[in-house]
């Protein structure tokens, strides 16, 4: 015969176990939601109130080294820089799909896109005196661009993980850059140049090959592969010269 007080104690302990289990499960779910929210790679919330519009994406194909424009309907923000960033994120997300012809890993790719008017002028000289001569110091910095440069330059700040995970090779890196440049040119005609940064810093190459310190002209980068021509003058692959 089990004493009454022991039965009460037993069932009290069983009840406590269930209560602690429920509390633990609830805590785990809350922690999971919190961590999932931190890892959400979605850069910008989809503009549900904005109507979709036609955009042109320049999609690359590794098999033949071509780049072809395609039309898609997207809902994009109205702000130009946010719009450019969302557009590039969508473009690079296309390459992470299973049917991609230019395979890139999924994940955040573009941190920011900035539009700067050209020509970029040097900062105004300060009225400080030289410590050696006692004369007003004159800035020797020349304008970064010649006076003939007009339009805007797009500075694309790539995510470091995107660069680290990008396939290495001249063709594949070149196609990625041309795809970005062509897409920006088609949707932002005012652009005349495109520059690239990685995590806010100048970077030598995309993944060991394609030069990222170079300023690329924003032009149509449609690429049609052509075989070598016998007895022909130099026949560049690209139909246009970025």
């Amino acid at each position, binding site marked *: 015969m089990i004493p009454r007080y022991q039965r009460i104690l037993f069932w009290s302990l069983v009840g406590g176990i269930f209560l602690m289990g429920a509390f633990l499960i609830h805590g785990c779910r809350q922690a999971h939601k919190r961590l999932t929210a931190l890892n959400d790679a979605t850069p910008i919330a989809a503009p549900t109130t904005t109507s979709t519009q036609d955009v042109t994406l320049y999609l690359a194909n590794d098999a033949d*080294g071509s780049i072809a424009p395609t039309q898609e309907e997207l809902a994009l923000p109205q702000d130009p820089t946010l719009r450019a960033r969302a557009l590039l994120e969508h473009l690079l997300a296309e390459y992470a799909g299973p049917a991609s012809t230019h395979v890139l890993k999924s994940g955040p790719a573009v941190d920011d896109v900035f539009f700067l008017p050209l020509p970029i002028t040097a900062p105004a000289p300060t009225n400080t005196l030289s410590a050696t001569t006692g004369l007003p110091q004159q800035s020797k910095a020349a304008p970064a661009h010649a006076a003939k440069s007009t339009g805007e330059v797009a500075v694309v700040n790539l995510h470091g993980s995107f660069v680290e995970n990008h396939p290495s090779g001249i063709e594949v890196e070149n196609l990625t850059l041309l795809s970005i440049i062509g897409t920006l040119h088609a949707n932002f005609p005012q652009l005349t140049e495109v520059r690239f940064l990685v995590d806010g810093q100048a970077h030598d190459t995309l993944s*060991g*090959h394609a030069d990222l310190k170079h300023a690329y002209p924003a032009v149509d980068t449609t*690429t049609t*592969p052509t*075989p070598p021509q016998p007895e022909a003058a130099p026949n560049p*692959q690209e139909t246009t010269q970025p």
Partner: protein
Amino acid sequence: MECEFRSRLVKTPFSHLRGTNSFNHALHPNQLQSNPLTPPRKQSVAAVLLTLSSLASLAQTPAQPQAPPSTPSQAAPSQAAPIAPRPTRTLILIDPAHGGPDTGAHLPNDVLEKDITLAFNSRLRALLSTNNFAVISTRTSDPSAAFTTDQRAEIANHDRPAACLILHATSSGSGIHLFTSRLTPPEHPTHILQWNTAQAAFTPASRSLANQIGLALLDAKLPVILGQATVPPLDNLTCPAIAIELAPLASTTPVTNANYQQRAAQAIVTALINWRAENAAEGAAQ
């Protein structure tokens, strides 16, 4: 974009690392013409250099397999026999990209791009030397600290080769990718070359050579893609320059396949032989 000017005749301490001809640059006719010397001194220096040049050409001539003289008349001094025209020796610079801590692309089966480019460099060197080309490589091993791309360009520009081949390998795409510079030729060529656009004056010759190599690769049943890219140090070279990227062949033949590499190297050398012959014919016509 910073505009960095560098001299085309920068003296570099890399001559001890070159491949076969460490004194070729000193005998180059362009460099002879570029020395602003007074006439008497110029004549004496030219005479000394011509003497050295003749000795150098004798020393550089590889041992060609020749049939033993069967008759006494064939073994007679050279004055009696007609001198056969010898093919012009052409200096080719090969740059096996990457090296040292810069491994390049990580290819399947833990293969590194720097090892593939080095192996392909060895095949090209052997075939080119056999066909009477003088060859310089920016590296023939895997050093602990490889040259930067700027240093490789300085080596190439210092030695003034007839053509520069930059070797790469990748696991993306298929076939062989030939890239030339994206620069456009200058409207008004000048003697002062900007470092970042030094290749501009050579882009027509580079694209012509790439087209010729592409045709030879197609003849060898190898798929080819011609393209233009901004790849260091392509834009800094003052010679017809091509970046050659090996990619897997139809997803069944990896870039490590020795037969594939040999076929590609043979086709490239065949194209260079034709290109040298055409250049020699054009020079003779002029």
